Structures are given as structure tokens and as C-alpha cells.
């Protein structure tokens, strides 16, 4: 038998699920990494994964993008990648740089990482609102 306290997470999860379905919102984890060698990008990766657990209810800021009918989040992010990255980079960016200098050669490798965060994504007919959660 469940105690009263033990039921709270279950009730909270159910309410969040119902609210998400009612609003047409989904939750995704999105992360990004770019590697540039000698000032030229050599590798780029945008990772999108649907959240398997409810994210934090505390929201930070939002980005609204125009969506074509039935466009998925993946294709939308590919199309509007620059806008999304500038939005996501405002909150947290990890930068790592390694340079080696020899008398006849030099090499510079920069790695920029936007750590994976949970985003609430609301799909409407013409717009998509992406909200960062804490």
C-alpha cells in the first residue's frame, strides 16, 4: 500500500504528463559540440533526445521559431541552428583550447560544448517555442 507521501511523485508526474499533452508540449535534451582546428570547423554535432523523465518545472528563457507545417524538431533545428545556438550559448558554454607551437609548425584546436539541457518544446501550427528549464 502506498503512503500519502509516496504518492506525491506519482501524482506530480501524472499532472505534468497531462499538462504536457494538453499544451502540445514535449521535453527534449539538446546538446552541441563544435571542434575547430586552425580556425576551421572540422566536426560538429547537435544531439537531440526526447526526455524520458519530467524536467524541472523552473523555466529560464524562451526562443520562438517559425515552423513549416508538420516539421519535426530535428529538421527545424537543422534549419534554424544558428538562432538556436546563439540562444542556448547565452546560458552556459564550455570552451577548451589546446595550442602547440614548434619552430616550423603550429596547431590550434578549439572545442566548444553546450552541455545537454532539458528544453520544453511547444509545437503550434506555425510556431515552435523552445524553453530552457533549470
Amino acid at each position, binding site marked *: 500500500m502506498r503512503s500519502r507521501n509516496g504518492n506525491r511523485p506519482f501524482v506530480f508526474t501524472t499532472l505534468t504528463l497531462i499538462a504536457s499533452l494538453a499544451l502540445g508540449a514535449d521535453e527534449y535534451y539538446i546538446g552541441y559540440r563544435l571542434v575547430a582546428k586552425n580556425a*576551421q570547423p*572540422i566536426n560538429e554535432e547537435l544531439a537531440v533526445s526526447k526526455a524520458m523523465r519530467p524536467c524541472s518545472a523552473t523555466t529560464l528563457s524562451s526562443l520562438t521559431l517559425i515552423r513549416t507545417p508538420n516539421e519535426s524538431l530535428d529538421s527545424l533545428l537543422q534549419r534554424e541552428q544558428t538562432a538556436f545556438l546563439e540562444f542556448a550559448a547565452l546560458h552556459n558554454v564550455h570552451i577548451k583550447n589546446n595550442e602547440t607551437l614548434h619552430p616550423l609548425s603550429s596547431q590550434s584546436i578549439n572545442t566548444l560544448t553546450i552541455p545537454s539541457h532539458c528544453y520544453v518544446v511547444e509545437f503550434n501550427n506555425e510556431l515552435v517555442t523552445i524553453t530552457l528549464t533549470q
Partner: protein
Amino acid sequence: MITVIGQGVAPSITASPAQAYALAKRSAIVDGYRQIAEKVAGVHVEGQDSIKNMMLASSSTRTWVEAFIRGANITNTTFKDGLCEVEMEIALSYSRLLH
């Protein structure tokens, strides 16, 4: 307030001028963040010289920097002759640095 200018170059093979611009800008932004990190967090420098028979045989220098950055803004972007320059700024407060 710290202001830096990051520079980036597009790869030699791109599908279109728009893609070249986008990739050069990404690279310039990374360079801008690197410069901010260098100013805020500092740079590690490691040098090694080898001397053989009183003569310099080899010399190498390695530098590295690693930091988390929050709140940097892009204020200006220019793209000319394949080189993209991004002006970035970040506001710092003394109390924030102490933490």
C-alpha cells in the same frame, strides 16, 4: 566589460556561400569564446627546449585553457574574403569573480 574579436575561416570545400558563411561564423564564435576564457580564466603555458652539444636541438611550446562561460553576447559580425570576424562582449562584476 571584456570585448574580443574572434576570427574564423570557412573550410575550403563547402556546398554554398551561405554554408561557408555559417561555418566561418561558428568558428569565429569559438575563437571569441577562447579569447574570453584566456582573459577570464588565464592560460596554462608549458615550454620545452632541448640542448645538445651546446646547441638548441628542439623547441616546443604548449598552451591550453579551459573554462565555462555564461552571458557572452555577439555585438557585431563581418564577413570578407572568406574571413569572418565576430565581436563579442561579456560583462563581469567583481563580486562574481570572487565567487
